[in-house]
């Protein structure tokens, strides 16, 4: 029983073809809405959490406790004038924010979310090569940042884009190696070790305990992917004004903004799925989603705390760090994972 078959059961009267189509359509729409609301909730939570950390109150004028703040922001951003720089590169300039946001949503729809009482397993796509797909989609988002930086005809944006690319190159390889270690370990227990849900189901002991080095590398990579402090060299508010998104106005900027927070949430889900045991636990067939959500929220809080407390690292130091520390660590991690798998039979 899964979300898909649950919906399919409702529309069964329409016949197989139509029912399948309607099922996927409706599920995707519902899913996109839920994902968008979740991202908005992350932003709201961040603003409240930031305020608390900084001895402030945070938004409290719109709605109870300011819960409608994000809706107000969205309305305002929709109503803003869209200024297009005169010397822009038109197509990339317009595509870039969409690319970032679409990449984010697609990545959300690849993940499995465990199960909840009557709805059953919650997923949209249970691809057999989910891990490859996920990281392929994640690799789209920096392309959006790069396009935004290059096409807006602004020196700050250009430097921001160059930094973003330098940063991406230096953490992608360690990130992929640490994921590979997970696939290696999962392959001992499941036949389909590239499917995300079978990987998660196979981790009776969270992989974060078995390979803490991998967790370390992966968490840092996720911070760098979402690009907040200490690794927000692409935006670097105090140096490059706003980095690659300097020239963007209105909702186009809003998409970048959503994309950033969405990536934090996405990263937290991925970290808790791969390294913290995901939705496994007692009665996981009933309340697996709750386990996952709790873990994700914890990771989100840790991420925000890191964001608020850390200064920005310099780009060359990060590149150094990526190649000189993260890469060897992730290689060691991979070797250890192979060792564990072969000799200890994990």
């Amino acid at each position, binding site marked *: 029983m899964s979300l898909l078959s649950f919906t399919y059961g409702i529309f069964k009267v329409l016949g197989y073809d139509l029912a399948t189509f309607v099922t996927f359509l409706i599920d995707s729409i519902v899913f996109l809405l839920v994902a968008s609301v979740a991202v908005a909730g992350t932003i709201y939570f961040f*603003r409240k959490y930031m*305020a608390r950390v*900084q*001895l*402030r*109150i*945070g*938004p*409290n*004028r*719109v709605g109870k406790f*300011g819960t*409608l*703040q994000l*809706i*107000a*922001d*969205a*309305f*305002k951003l*929709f*109503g*803003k*004038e*869209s*200024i297009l720089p005169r010397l822009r590169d038109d197509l990339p300039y317009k595509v870039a924010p969409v690319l970032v946001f679409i990449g984010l949503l697609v990545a959300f729809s690849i993940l499995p979310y465990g199960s909840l009482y009557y709805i059953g397993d919650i997923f949209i796509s249970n691809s057999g090569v989910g891990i490859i797909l996920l990281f392929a989609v994640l690799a789209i988002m920096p392309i959006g940042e790069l396009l935004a930086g290059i096409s807006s005809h602004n020196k700050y944006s250009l430097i921001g884009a160059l930094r973003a690319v330098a940063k991406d190159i230096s953490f992608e390889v360690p990130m992929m190696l640490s994921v590979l270690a997970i696939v290696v370990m999962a392959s001992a227990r499941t036949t389909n070790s590239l499917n995300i849900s079978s990987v998660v189901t196979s981790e009776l002991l969270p992989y974060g305990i078995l390979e803490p080095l991998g967790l370390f590398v992966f968490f840092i990579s996720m911070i760098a992917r979402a690009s907040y402090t200490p690794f927000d060299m692409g935006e670097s*508010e*105090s140096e490059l*004004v*706003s980095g690659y*998104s*300097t*020239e*963007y*106005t*209105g909702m186009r*900027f809003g998409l970048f903004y959503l994309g950033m927070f969405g990536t934090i949430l996405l990263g937290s889900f991925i970290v808790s799925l791969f390294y913290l045991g995901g939705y496994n636990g007692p009665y996981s067939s009933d309340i697996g989603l709750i386990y996952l959500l709790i873990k994700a929220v914890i990771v989100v809080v840790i991420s925000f705390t890191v964001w608020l407390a850390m200064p920005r690292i310099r780009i060359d130091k990060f590149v150094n760090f990526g190649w000189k520390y993260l890469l060897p660590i992730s290689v060691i991690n991979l070797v250890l994972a192979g060792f564990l798998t072969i000799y200890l039979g994990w």
Partner: protein
Amino acid sequence: MKTGEPGLITTTLEKALEWGRSNSIWPLTFGLACCAIEMMAVQASKVDISRFGSEIFRSSPRQSDLMIVAGTVTKKMAPRVKRLYDEMPYPKYVIAMGVCVIQGGPYVEGYSVVLGVDRVIPVDVYVPGCPPTPEALTYGIMTLQKKIRGENTR
């Protein structure tokens, strides 16, 4: 329906937009002089501007809605103020903070001070004081909110 009378949906949308705009004013990080310190104090813990949804100080004029002209505008700075104002997307608002910005303040007799920023850009709300207290600036922002919503500010 008579022509020229806005329909229900239009008015509702208009109201919603006004509500959104008034509750999510993102100021530009733009401090000129003394008043900028009080503008920073408005961000800080005691007078917390984030309650009104304005804590996101954007440093790029492209993403900000409100320009708080905080501090004396000199003649050398005035073209820049105007350019920054031009770079902001509509709808945009300006708060003139402090007497220097309103009419020149103590520097009114000088040779290099603009006698009021309203000679360069249009101003929505004037906040007098030298410098205005953070509370005064907060009141200015609340007045601006009322103005955006079309309420009577008196």
